[in-house]
């Protein structure tokens, strides 16, 4: 990844695109998409809720890829490994942030739609587990500090996260549930709602990409600052 001006320039372009997409999505959500019949304005949560949820999954998938890259490249190339490491922490943090949005919007919506903040329902359980898994990733990173051993363990965890997510998904799907599946089941018939929905998903995707890129650049900078401090310590200490 470019860490000089190029990376930042890409970041600025992405940020601009994301901002535009967010404005478009907000417009479509609040002024074009119709008010839902039974839930009213509260249904607008849907567009943020689902967008965050999908992007959370994407972020965690990339995190696992970065983890695999880190473990494989570590003995061969310090540079590739530290870039993969930066991508790993960036995707995990952004993913957890998106997860937090899901975990706040979901229950708020649930209180209105189902009359309770939480039920032990498969989809909800799935997202909670995945969310916790990557919180564990962040905890590992936080306590490992810059220790390469701890980073390796965190990378391993993110890799195991993939089959983990698969098994959690299989497990929870086997026991049915109340969480809606309108999109995949071909619901969402109203064109206004459809447009708003896709716009919000794309906007969230752009926001996610921007945040990940910037966070990874920050991490690279931090790595470089550490290297500079070490260089000073090496020549003077």
């Amino acid at each position, binding site marked *: 990844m470019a860490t000089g001006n190029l990376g930042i320039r890409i970041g600025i372009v992405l940020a601009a695109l994301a901002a535009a997409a967010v404005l478009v999505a907000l417009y479509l959500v609040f002024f074009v998409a119709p008010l839902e019949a039974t839930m009213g304005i509260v249904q607008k949560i849907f567009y943020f809720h689902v967008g965050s949820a999908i992007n959370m999954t994407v972020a965690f998938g990339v995190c696992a890829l970065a983890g695999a890259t880190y473990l494989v490249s570590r003995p061969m190339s310090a540079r590739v490994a530290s870039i993969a490491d930066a991508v790993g922490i960036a995707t995990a943090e952004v993913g957890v942030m998106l997860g937090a949005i899901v975990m706040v919007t979901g229950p708020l919506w649930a209180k209105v739609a189902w009359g309770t903040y939480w039920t032990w329902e498969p989809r909800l359980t799935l997202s909670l587990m995945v969310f916790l898994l990557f919180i564990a990733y962040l905890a590992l990173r936080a*306590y490992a500090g810059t220790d390469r051993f701890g980073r390796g363990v965190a990378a391993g965890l993110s890799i195991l996260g993939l089959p983990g997510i698969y098994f959690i998904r299989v497990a929870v799907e086997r026991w049915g549930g109340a969480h809606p599946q309108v999109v995949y089941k071909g619901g969402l018939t109203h064109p206004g709602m459809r447009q708003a929905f896709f716009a919000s998903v794309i906007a969230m995707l752009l926001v996610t990409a921007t945040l990940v890129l910037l966070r990874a650049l920050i991490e690279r900078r931090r790595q470089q600052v550490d290297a500079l401090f070490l260089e000073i310590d090496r020549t003077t200490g």
Partner: protein
Amino acid sequence: MQAWRQFVAIVRKDLVVEFRTREILLTMALFSMLLVIVFAFAFLSDPTRARDYGPGIIWVTVLFASTIGQNRLFDRERENGCLWSLLLSPTGAGTIFLAKATTQFLFTVLMELPTLLLILVFFDLAVVRPGAFVGALLLGTIALSLVGTLFSAMLMNARMKEVLLPLVTYPLLVPVVIAGVKVTSVAVGAPVAEDPELWLRFLLGFDMIFAVATWFLFGRMIRA
């Protein structure tokens, strides 16, 4: 051949130490009994519903007790930095991993016997499908041992090992617990509409994929 001798030596060492101190098995067994008793007190309001919450209690107990056993097993390797004597020896990482996972599996199974007996008696449960009951426990215990061993070894020297271990492993193990509870519910004759075969196959798949994944990761993660 040499790897086999090393494997046997590591497992035997842990068994000898355990036979001498009886620490881990006693810890696990007593802890799980206390757990069962506390559960009994906390939920004893309605004994007729034992079949509903019995399977849950079984799996919660197995999960916690195996975590505790795992912690103690690796505390032993941590004292005097002993795990390093394994890692710095010419023994292969895969051998070390399989040996530790095997010990962990043996200890967990040994702990489960008295605990299950206690739960079945205390909560007055009858096992109507013993095959499914035992199968779920064995497959589940293998999963716990694999995931637990990988991360206990990794986190052995982490400052917050005791938090990090459950934090890291429980989300991965939740599907195992879910599947276990389902099969066990059917096995004790609870009126649930579940297909135990399906869940058992699920557990088998989990075991196979995680056996390969953990075995592979162990070497990569531990010898940087």
